[in-house]
């Protein structure tokens, strides 16, 4: 006679509920807390629409990896990988679905492909017509290095501090690229902080913009810049790739993919590729990237004081980057005797095109006939290049 009681007991013992409650003090509570955090992130993504295309995947990846006994993600396997005890082959053989997804993050495949999509969607025309925008893109990297210094002061190691600092670049793929190389154990916290703050740019930036610029300067109308020829737009990605990759070879992967995507867009003979990179490929990689990054948010590594420090340092980095760009904008405003609206400096933090839209919105609140969007796009795309250079520098120092 079958012992139904034993079958049910076995079923209970093999269930995730049992794993959580039988080992509640030893780690089960962490699983529960992480499941609650995953649900909060899903709420923010779906109801509040905080970067939903990424946050839904991140939150669901977090949910999946914190379901005990699911075997989808194995942090211990990646610890061995980091210690050079095993290779990708072992991960493929012994890992779960999310471990296999994560290989794309670890090899930098996903961030680079996302950058290719970003390049294919970016018009560098405003930057080419006003090259001085690059100075604002550089000034707005201040938060990266200030947060790096702050992180060292709070007790993080050099590579960890570099990964936290890059949140100030307001560039998700760059943050993931650098963190996966320097401090993979912080990837979950840094990715969530970076993407959450990017979604909060319309709330974070305007108070800083109003505090650091005068009402008179915010009303400045900027003159239309010159028309950029098609040939210039085609030469630009090739020139930037050669130039930046020679200057900082560690940025070659990111800048190369960004510019390849842009070249697909501008050549006029690769429209099909441009379309694929902008849409199908971008969407597929976003699914894999977001789920894999979310999977790294395992309770034992995420529920620490370090995550709270990352959240605080992240917002400081964003704020200081905005402030740096505005300082640059104010200086340019004075040097040009009021021809440059300092608000466009705030768009120097990457976050394309959100930061440029915020500059335009704040400008229009002060002067409804002011259209700063195209002027702000120059510093905005310069910020993408600037944050990639900053990441390349940090990688060359700490990598």
């Amino acid at each position, binding site marked *: 006679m079958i012992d139904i009681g034993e079958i049910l007991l076995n079923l209970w013992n093999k269930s995730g509920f049992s794993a959580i409650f039988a080992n509640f003090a030893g780690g089960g509570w962490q699983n529960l807390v992480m499941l609650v955090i995953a649900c909060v992130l899903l709420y923010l993504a779906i109801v509040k629409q905080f970067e939903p295309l990424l946050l839904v995947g991140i939150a669901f990846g977090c949910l999946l990896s914190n379901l005990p006994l699911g075997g989808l993600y194995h942090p211990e396997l990646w610890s061995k990988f980091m210690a050079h005890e095993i290779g990708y082959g072992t991960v493929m053989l012994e890992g779960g679905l999310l471990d296999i997804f994560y290989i794309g993050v670890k090899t930098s495949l996903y961030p680079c492909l996302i950058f290719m999509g970003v390049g294919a969607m970016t018009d560098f025309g405003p*930057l080419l017509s006003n*090259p001085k925008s690059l100075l604002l893109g*550089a000034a707005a990297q201040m938060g990266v290095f200030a947060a790096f210094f702050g992180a060292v002061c709070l007790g993080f190691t050099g*590579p960890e501090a570099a990964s936290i600092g890059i949140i100030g670049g307001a560039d998700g793929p760059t943050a993931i690229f650098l963190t996966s190389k320097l401090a993979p154990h912080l990837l979950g916290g840094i990715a969530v902080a970076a993407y959450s703050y990017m979604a909060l740019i319309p709330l974070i930036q305007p108070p800083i913009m109003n505090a650091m610029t005068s009402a008179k300067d915010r009303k400045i109308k900027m003159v239309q810049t010159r028309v950029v*020829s098609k040939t210039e737009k085609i030469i630009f990605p090739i*020139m*930037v790739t050669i130039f*930046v990759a020679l200057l900082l070879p560690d940025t070659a992967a990111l800048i190369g993919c960004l510019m390849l995507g842009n070249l697909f867009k501008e050549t006029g003979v690769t429209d099909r590729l441009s379309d694929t990179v902008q849409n199908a490929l971008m969407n597929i990689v976003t699914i894999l990237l977001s789920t894999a990054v979310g999977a790294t948010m395992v309770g034992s590594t995420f529920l620490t004081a370090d995550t709270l420090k990352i959240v605080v340092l992240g917002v400081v980095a964003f704020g200081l980057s905005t402030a740096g760009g505005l300082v640059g904008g104010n200086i340019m405003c004075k040097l040009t005797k009021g021809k440059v609206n300092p608000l466009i400096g705030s768009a120097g933090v990457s976050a394309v095109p959100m930061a440029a839209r915020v500059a335009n919105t704040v400008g229009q609140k002060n002067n409804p*006939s002011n259209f700063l969007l195209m002027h702000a796009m120059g510093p905005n795309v310069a910020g993408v290049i600037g944050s990639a*250079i900053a990441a390349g520098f940090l990688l060359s120092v700490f990598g």
Partner: protein
Amino acid sequence: MTFLAAAPHLENISFANAGIVALLGYAVVFFGLILLMVVITIMGKIFSAKKAVPAAKTAAPAAAAPAAEIPASQMPKDLAPGTAGQLKLYDTPPKTAAMIMAIVADQMGKPLNELRFISIKEVK
């Protein structure tokens, strides 16, 4: 640059070294982007000069031709009273242009007849 040479040992970086790395990193970003700015500016000037040369070539014969040779039938028609001139559309259908003008007027809070649109071009 001894700290750069000792990169693998920067795990436990001191405050002083962190400050130096931060300042140097910021300087490198500026240096890279300033160089890029110089290159783009030079490229822009070359292209602007190239554009100016054919424009000057076509403008010269046009200026030399006597104005009286233009037949009266080909002279532009008189503009309607009260008009602010013609609107040039580049790759923009008239319906889209009308919508854009209405949106701009609405955003600015000004009547459409008090605004002058010179040209509308689709940015590709």
